[in-house]
């Protein structure tokens, strides 16, 4: 194996693990934020219409 093969192998491993880790976090916690976004925008709409 030459130098660049090792570099790309390590980089690929790091990229894959990092991708999997952050993706798992984002998928799990992002769902609650998506619901909250809809709720907040809906809340503003209700305020504008004068509803409680």
């Amino acid at each position, binding site marked *: 194996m030459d130098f660049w093969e090792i570099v*790309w192998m390590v980089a690929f491993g790091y990229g894959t693990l*990092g*991708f999997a880790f952050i993706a798992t976090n984002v998928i799990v916690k992002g769902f609650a934020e998506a619901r909250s*976004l809809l709720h907040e925008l809906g809340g503003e709409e209700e305020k504008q219409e004068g509803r409680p």
Partner: protein
Amino acid sequence: MRFSTFDWTLVAVYVLLAFAIGMLARKRITNIADYLVAGRHIRYNLGVASLVATELGLVTMMYFAEQGYRFGFAAFIIGVIWAAAYFMIGQTGFVVERIRQLEIITITEYFQVRYSRGVRVLAASLLTIAGVLSLGVFLKLGAVFIVNFTDIPETSLHLTMTVLVVIVVIYTILGGMVSVVLTDYVQFVFLAIGMLMASVFVLHYHGVISIFEKARELYGAGAMNPFTHPEYGWTFIAYWAVFAVSGCVLWQPVAQRILASENPELNRRIFKSTSVMFLGRAFFPILWGIGAALYFGAAGDPTAGMPKFLAEILPIGILGFLAAGMFAALMSTDDSYLIAWSGIIVQDLIAPLRGKEISESGRVMLTRICVFMIGILMLIFGIWYELKDSAFRYLLDVTTIYYAGGLPVLVAGLYWKRANLPGAYLAFAFGAFLPLAFVAEDIILQARGIGEPGFFNELFSANMRGLMSFVLGFIGMGIGSIITGNSPALAGKQS
């Protein structure tokens, strides 16, 4: 080909989900800030999902795979530099922190605050040219993937493109940025899982270690080193590094997410996390492209090779999951770009030029009309235009039209007190000249049916042309500002 009814069902479920979200989001839109920046309510996880999903389009997979197919592992350098740029910005808050504090809707709006309305209109015009020219290719590459991956007859390519445009335009018009961000999240789920699974199957097919050995045999021993690679080398690395920084701070779909985040500090966190995701964003499709090259041989089609290869090796179910993810990638990128450029046209071209105030509902309506018009334009251009070089090269050129002037104008405006109006105009004029002349010449030659490379094609290599454009942009800003710097009428406003 083994694309089954079950796989089609998975794709259909995703499309229906996207429409449902579009309808749901529509009810929540009350003003232009809701429509274009989701009311500035985007938090960390949704911000990361949306930023990654927007920049992880089907077109991205296709051009990265094409680079992998043609040039092997050396193409990984593209992902490394891009990730480094995001990390650097996340670490330092360079540009993104100051720009978010200004509470603006588009980056070009800043050009008016700092320089003048004319600079804003010029920047918006260049950005619209760059955006619309890229969008046509997005659609075409998306359709090439779907046709080759799902075994639809190749004669249906244009029909597939038309259907794709109709779907994307409808739900973007319905829900604006809210539906875009929410579908980005759904796309993120499908695509992140699909990409990881596809990469595992590619590595399983060729072998984790032996894929490197096979690649060495196919591309040659020196092909791993990007610094000495004939396609890349130092000029490309320098050009791509500046381009990547520009992409983080200037590209409207990315900037729109910076401006939509809840607060400036959040942007830095989002950029740092996204930098790691962007390694995978480049590495996975490049790996698939290399896998396809090893499967079909160097003489195969570098563009259609990756989808054909994946369709051959992936099992039923995973095939459908990845197809839904890819379909989602196409939709969420195209919708983000449609909304981004429609926003630019309304906020930065129509509104400043009209002079009179346009009501909130009027702006939303105009933006929706622009989404429709750009959809038609991208369909016509996508069907007519034939790429001469790789899609990656074409997209670099068209985007540099805006970046090469935009970067010095934005950075100098934020960090250099002497930056002024003539400097801004010169930066845009100098920076846009080479790539604009190259792309315009290419389109004219194609319209005339001439297949020969034009004057600007032969003047510099593609890497040198790009690098020179940025250098010229910075020179324009420097010369213009220093020579005319003493005139109070031309001095820039400090933001």
